[in-house]
């Protein structure tokens, strides 16, 4: 097994995972997005936006009524809704999936043979689970994604900075936790090493989540049920993407591994004769 073995399979697995994620996103993600856009367009004259005037004292960020002016989801947008929900969505999930597949494959290539006695497929599975948790689930729990009509265009810079900060802390803590788990597993045993590493990671991200200020921009009157639907849809999309990626990559690496084992057995048998 070489870096190439992993990378080629990871890119293919990621590409396929991106297509699967597109399918899931189209089916479960588009309905709440469309519902939110309908609210955004209906609400620009009443319930949603104009709160900024009355609440200016309590919410200093929401002062620009024209914040959404340069950004339109209707038919007059530069890219039509039909294109956004099909080709645009597919482009995003496939690029994201392929990039993730390549990186997960190379991270797995380093991890295989170095995580206790875990076999290659299991190692890939562990790396995918760590990746999903660190790169998506934990940032998601701190700063859950919002559908259109939620969030002021003015604060996109600050919100992105916060999200990326949480993400970087989570990913760095996860890398350190995996390395620490290896050392502790050698010193004591696997269960203690893994348990302590998970606990350590948990403490770090909980402290970070406590210190980072919240984002509170859901307009009054925005349906809570729709928000929940959108956020669980986002979780479903990412779960579908990571699961597909992990299954295909682990499966194909397992095939390479068993082939190599059979080859090795045959050679040993030949030598014994």
């Amino acid at each position: 097994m070489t870096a190439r073995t992993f990378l080629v399979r990871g890119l293919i697995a990621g590409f396929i995972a991106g297509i699967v994620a597109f399918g899931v996103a189209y089916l479960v993600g588009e309905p709440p997005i469309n519902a939110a856009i309908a609210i955004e367009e209906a609400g620009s004259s009443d319930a949603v936006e104009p709160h900024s005037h009355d609440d200016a004292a309590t919410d200093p960020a929401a002062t620009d009524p024209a914040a959404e002016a340069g950004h339109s989801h209707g038919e007059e947008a530069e890219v039509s809704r039909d294109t956004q929900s099909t080709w645009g969505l597919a482009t995003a999930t496939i690029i994201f999936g392929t990039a993730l597949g390549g990186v997960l494959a190379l991270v797995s290539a380093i991890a295989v043979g170095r995580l206790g006695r875990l076999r290659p497929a299991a190692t890939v599975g562990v790396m995918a689970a760590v990746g999903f948790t660190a790169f998506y689930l934990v940032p998601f729990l701190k700063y859950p994604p919002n559908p259109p009509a939620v969030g002021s265009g003015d604060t996109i810079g600050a919100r992105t900075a916060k999200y990326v900060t949480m993400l970087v802390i989570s990913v760095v803590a996860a890398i350190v936790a995996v390395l620490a788990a290896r050392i502790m597993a050698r010193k004591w045993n696997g269960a203690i090493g893994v348990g302590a590493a998970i606990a350590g990671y948990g403490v770090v991200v909980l402290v970070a989540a406590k210190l980072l200020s919240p984002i509170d921009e859901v307009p009054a009157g925005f349906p809570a049920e729709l928000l929940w639907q959108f956020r669980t849809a986002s979780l479903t999309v990412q779960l579908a993407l990571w699961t597909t990626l992990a299954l295909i990559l682990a499966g194909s690496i397992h095939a390479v591994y068993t082939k190599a084992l059979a080859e090795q057995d045959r050679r040993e048998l030949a030598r014994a004769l």
Partner: protein
Amino acid sequence: MSQAVAGQTLSGTPQLTVPAVPVREIMPWLVFFAVLGMIAVYFVSAEQGATSLFAGTNIHEWVHDGRHLLGFPCH
């Protein structure tokens, strides 16, 4: 870190050996693809949102739904 074989032998039972790829060999690939992956993810997640390398909103509009659903802050 560079042992070629990890995890053999448990009390005589023929334990499967798991070959490890040398870190030296993977590192350049990992660094290169991590950078490439970050650029790709940047365009999906943040271009023409928090920051803009290119003027206009076409990239933002094109990946709009994916950006929302993949969990990134969007407008």
